């Protein structure tokens, strides 16, 4: 995740400011446009899947019947930003 953030910072010239919080608060913050990017451990069939954009997970693990992935999350509709995130993830060997 650190390498991903560094690559992203190099591409955009931005400096990452990290903030921690509960998943609910992070998703609400993303939707409100307070954050550009979030990371959370979410299931592939999470109910939040329609509210925000899930990107390729850094890693997956099973929890009971469900598969969770620690992944990047972006605000819906930010297509150029999401395309950049996906490209950076692919460059680092995540996703397809």
């Amino acid at each position, binding site marked *: 995740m650190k390498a991903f953030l560094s690559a992203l910072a190099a591409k955009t010239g931005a400096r990452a400011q990290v903030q921690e919080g509960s998943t609910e608060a992070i998703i609400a913050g993303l939707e409100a446009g307070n954050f550009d990017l979030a990371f959370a451990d979410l299931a592939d069939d999470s109910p939040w899947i329609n509210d925000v*954009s899930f990107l390729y997970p850094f890693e997956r693990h099973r929890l009971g019947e469900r598969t969770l992935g620690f992944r990047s999350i*972006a*605000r*819906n*509709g*930010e*297509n*150029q930003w*999401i*395309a950049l995130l*996906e*490209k950076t993830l*692919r460059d680092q060997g995540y996703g*397809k």
Partner: protein
Amino acid sequence: MSERRGHPQAIAEDVRRTVRLEWWNVGWTLSVIIVMGFAMGGSQAMRTAWIEDTLGLVPPIAFLIAIRFEKRSANARFHYGYDRANGLGFVIAAVALGAVGLLLLKDAALSLFTLEHVTVGSIRLFGRDIWLGWFMLAAQAYSIVPPLIIGHKELPLAKRLRDKLIHTDALMNKANWQTGVAGLLGVAGLGMGWWWADSAAAGVIAVSIMSDGWGALKVATAELLDGIPHELGDAKLSSEARAIAKSLKAQFPDARILMRETGRYIRAEVVGASPPKNFDIDSYEIEGLTDRWRLDSIAFRP
């Protein structure tokens, strides 16, 4: 009473041509459905366009079924023949067209009200990162071509055959290519960050489609209720029916002339007069009625 078998000689070639065109229509529409199905991804606009393309199959299939029935002669169960099979297909096509408009309007309004921001991701292909929107744009561009060409070819045939079902199919094809253009603008808008462009364009087009569907449904219902013969694509009395009424009124001034339309044919009834001796409908001249096949029968009710 329609006791003929097959279509009148005057329109037989046009009927054959239309049947051929409608088979092409079904084939091309299926190809559009497949291409759009592969490209639609998570886009609501693309999904709506896909459903609309699927509904676009209804009019040509209704026509191909109706035309088979229409050429059958009257029999013990259907004393008046099957001329109205075309009218039934017309109702089905009109409902499908109206449904497309309604569906499009509902989706457009919902997307606008819920401030839906559609995400379109990317894919890596042969080492290059490609935005999936490009595939959607290509599919949308492809989906515009067949309905544009087929709809254009259908209009003169519908006019010559007085076929309201084919005319409605031409409207459906117009709806399909217009939705394709709206989809193109919408996907391009998504790429530029205009999340509302897609829904706004779709909403405007939906209103026009609904208006066409409503107009077609009014005429189709009127035909089922034995309303007056209509002009193609209009609720006005057809000029041919006016010519028939004028001619019959001149010959039977004290009679009432009633008319109705069964499919592509007009049937007239003269109320309060008896038929002249040796009256023959086939040789009966009507000024202003160039396509004589349009008048199927004249009945007398003294």
